[in-house]
């Protein structure tokens, strides 16, 4: 009888969260890549630290309560601060983290393009020299010389 009750209790415990949210709005595997472990400074999916385990358990609870990824992230930011997010937010000063690398790549590409363009200009062949016109006297002497050779 005790065993039956224990099994029933375990089944209820397992079924409880599932019944609470039939269609979860997000998944633990997704959020594990978005949230940092505060004590080891890696994402949750890379950490087995106790603090990471506690956060994973909290995320699982919230997923079972049908919370969205955004809601869970907001709660965690309230609890642990902005540093809990793996990616900086798309606003304010943090925008720099998104735009600076892009600006760097574009700036580098521009510099490279200008450099290549300038280099290619210096490699262009010199225009051929114009033929020197010979004066009639020189022409006559040349003809004489050539006639002598014949």
């Amino acid at each position, binding site marked *: 009888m005790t065993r039956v009750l224990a099994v029933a209790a375990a089944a209820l415990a397992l079924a409880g969260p599932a019944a609470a949210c039939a269609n979860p709005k997000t998944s633990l595997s997704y959020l594990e890549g978005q949230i940092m472990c505060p004590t080891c400074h890696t994402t949750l999916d890379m950490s087995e630290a106790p603090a990471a385990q506690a956060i994973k358990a909290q995320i699982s609870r919230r997923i079972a309560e049908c919370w969205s990824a955004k809601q869970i992230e907001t709660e965690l930011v309230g*609890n642990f601060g902005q540093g809990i997010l793996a990616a900086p937010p798309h606003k304010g000063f943090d925008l720099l983290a998104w735009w600076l690398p892009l600006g760097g790549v574009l700036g580098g590409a521009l510099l490279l393009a200008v450099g290549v363009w300038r280099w290619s200009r210096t490699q262009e062949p010199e225009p051929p020299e114009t033929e020197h016109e010979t004066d009639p006297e020189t022409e006559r002497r040349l003809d004489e010389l050539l006639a002598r050779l014949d």
Partner: protein
Amino acid sequence: MTRSLKVGGQLVALAAVAALLALLVWRLAHQQHAPKVGAKAPVFTLDRLTGPGAIDLASLRGKAVVLNFWASWCGPCKSEAKVLERAWQRYRSQGVAFVGVDYHDVTGDARRFVAAHGLTFPMVEDGSGDVTSGRYGISQVPETYVVGRTGKIVVHIAGPITSPSFATEFRDAIAAAMRS
């Protein structure tokens, strides 16, 4: 023109290297270390874990203070909790303040921990770790500081106070903090 472009590029590269070096120096200069015994305990104001309001460490000046850093996910903190509660019950009438600082913790878990272990001394939460890591240089819990009435650190125990080597040190430190 080509020459000016080249010089400009070199200047930009030099500026980038200088900026990176400056960043490295700044980072090294601002590395957090645990405050030394005899130094003033870094002050802080943190929200209470259970109930509204905040606790300002500076407001406890004039009292000996036991500052215990803990987390619900920390194994040794569980065994330490009962000892701390017993010490609090023993010393509170003698004017010693105890403050538990919950570090990098899920608030719900921390509250359950407090309830499960019957902890009654004031608790604050430091979810971001700004005070615990930032001002006290702590990266692992539990750790305990005993602060004298003048605000100076009397002892720093890096580990659970339940270990035999620390238990006597903890008791002696509280006595010293009450005198200082």
